[in-house]
């Protein structure tokens, strides 16, 4: 019984961490689906979102919910501007130019955040900090639960947005076929920038949800590397896949830390990623596509 409870605890913790990976991966997937770019700075945008929330809530003393909403909006605006000013210019260059560009941007964000907020870890008071819920013998942290609930809610909102609203459908159209979307009168460039905005906003939500569990610091962007594993497991083009992949990575990581010797926890996400790329590169949720030359 003790073991089973311990195991459940690990799984819940893993799922919570996995939701964060999933949210970052969601950002990758949204951008990849639309523009075939991979944003290596996604983790750093999450870090910026976390710091925005820190400034608004801890410094300016805003209410948690208002501060969080403002931080998400700010980060989204930042994503829009980033695409409009920088990334739009490299359309048509080889893909690895984009990889290097976003990597470079990530380093710049990290330095700017370091100058602005310092290199120490910071945190702010949330309604979920240090509270627990007992669910039949299990002691669960509210912070972990808030991550899981928040992720599910966010996905529901995104799902409704993409399937029900005009803009969401326009976004789907532009990511399926840019030229056709353009002919239908969709302002493709602006739609792409909006997708960057959504993706940055999702990253900010991840940063804010993560803050009660682990502190915000300049290097939290490195979580983005683990989120790649999540995106790849999900098939890099599938939104539910990214979340499922994230949860898988999170749980595997927790279990590896518990059952395997030290060191395996750090590499488990990367090992899962490489194994997935070797065995099933199209991911668990691949859309079937035929090749036409």
């Amino acid at each position: 019984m003790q073991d089973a409870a311990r195991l459940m605890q690990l799984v819940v913790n893993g799922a919570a961490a996995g939701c964060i990976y999933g949210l970052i991966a969601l950002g990758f997937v949204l951008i990849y689906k639309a523009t075939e770019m991979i944003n290596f700075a996604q983790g750093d945008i999450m870090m910026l979102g976390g710091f925005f929330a820190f400034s608004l809530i801890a410094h300016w003393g805003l209410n948690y919910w208002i501060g969080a909403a403002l931080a998400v909006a700010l980060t989204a605006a930042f994503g829009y501007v980033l695409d409009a000013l920088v990334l739009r210019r490299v359309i048509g260059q080889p893909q690895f130019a984009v990889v290097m560009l976003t990597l470079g941007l990530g380093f710049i964000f990290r330095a700017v955040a370091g100058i602005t907020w310092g290199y120490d870890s910071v945190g702010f008071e949330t309604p979920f900090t240090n509270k627990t819920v007992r669910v039949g013998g299990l002691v669960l942290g509210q912070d972990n639960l808030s991550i899981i609930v928040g992720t599910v809610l966010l996905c529901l909102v995104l799902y409704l947005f993409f399937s029900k609203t005009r803009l969401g459908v326009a976004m789907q159209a532009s990511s399926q076929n840019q030229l056709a979307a353009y002919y239908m009168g969709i302002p493709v460039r602006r739609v792409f920038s909006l997708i960057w905005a959504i993706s940055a906003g999702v990253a900010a939500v991840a940063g804010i949800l993560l803050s009660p569990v682990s502190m915000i610091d300049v290097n939290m962007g490195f979580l983005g590397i683990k989120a790649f594993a999540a995106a790849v497991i999900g098939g890099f083009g599938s939104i539910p896949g990214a979340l499922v992949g994230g949860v898988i990575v999170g749980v595997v990581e927790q279990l590896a830390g518990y059952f395997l010797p030290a060191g395996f926890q750090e590499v488990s996400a990367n090992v899962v990623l490489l194994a997935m790329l070797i065995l099933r590169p199209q991911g668990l949720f691949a859309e079937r596509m035929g090749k036409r030359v």
Partner: protein
Amino acid sequence: MRYVFRTDYRQDIRLWRHRGDLFWYALLFVALLLIPQLMGEFYVGELGAVFIFAIAGVGLMLLVGYTGLISLGHAAFLGIGAYTNAILLKQGVLFALSLPTAGLFTALFGVAIGIPTLRMSGLYLAIATLAFGSIVGTVLQKWDKVTGGFDGFAVPTPTLFGIPLDSANGIYYVSLAVLLFVLWLSANLLRTPFGRAMVAIRDSEVSAQSMGIHLARYKTYAFAISAFITGLAGALFAHYVRFLAPDSFDVLLSVQLVTIVFVGGLGSLHGAILGAIFVRLLPQAIAIMRDDLPFGIGRMPGLEPSLFGLVLVLVILFEPGGIYGRWLKIKHWFQAYPLKRRTGFRRQKSYARSERLR
């Protein structure tokens, strides 16, 4: 302006375009041989480091610049080369033997990572190599029986033909020799059918395949050669740092190596060397100007990676040809003066090329 009128194929693939080229390169070579006699130990050591990074840059250039495969895990190859060489030396193996062994051993890893990643397109490859690099970094940390773990270990002093290479000069000359060997190897490789195949794969996989190029085989070879050269650089790097610690082979180093290739100029061996000079000189320049910069910018932690990031962003946005590309433009401007045409180097109008299959 000298215009070389080519009359046969042998002339077209010659390593020197004309005698003037040969003269200038020979002059440069003599100057490089004399430098240790004229300059202080510190500068010789730094120049040796430039050579080592240039070797790694050439290795990565063959992969990124000529085959079009991106790798964000080359620090791992550098690390494998460094540790292999140092551990062999500790076992008492001769340096003349341990250096090539380190290269070959690293090449094995190149094949090992190359084979599974062959089916991947550019982006997946970037992610896979990033993951590979971080796995190797963790292994170097945790496998402390062999690597000494976090504490690392001191690298034994190598001896070559009975002469101990304990000064900066020794490493300088060995690095120079290896760099020349690697450049000779790559330049020759690039004018063989093998090199042409690599370039063809870079330009279009579909058309390369339809011309009968075995994609998987050539990509694996490219990975192996690139890893071999980077492993050699790693072996020398071990002697440059003299004390191996796993945290020197992290993602940041991989990004530095790719910066060499991008800033120097994709698709040219000159670029690899120019990029290495840039990447090694930037930290030195920061160190010199540290106290003179306004607002204490110079003492800011994390300045170096952010400057690398900034330079990378600016180069990709404004000069995709890198330093060598800019040099070609400047040379063209002088050669064609006053007839330089604005359109000479204009990039074609480009559209997003899809790698998706549909």
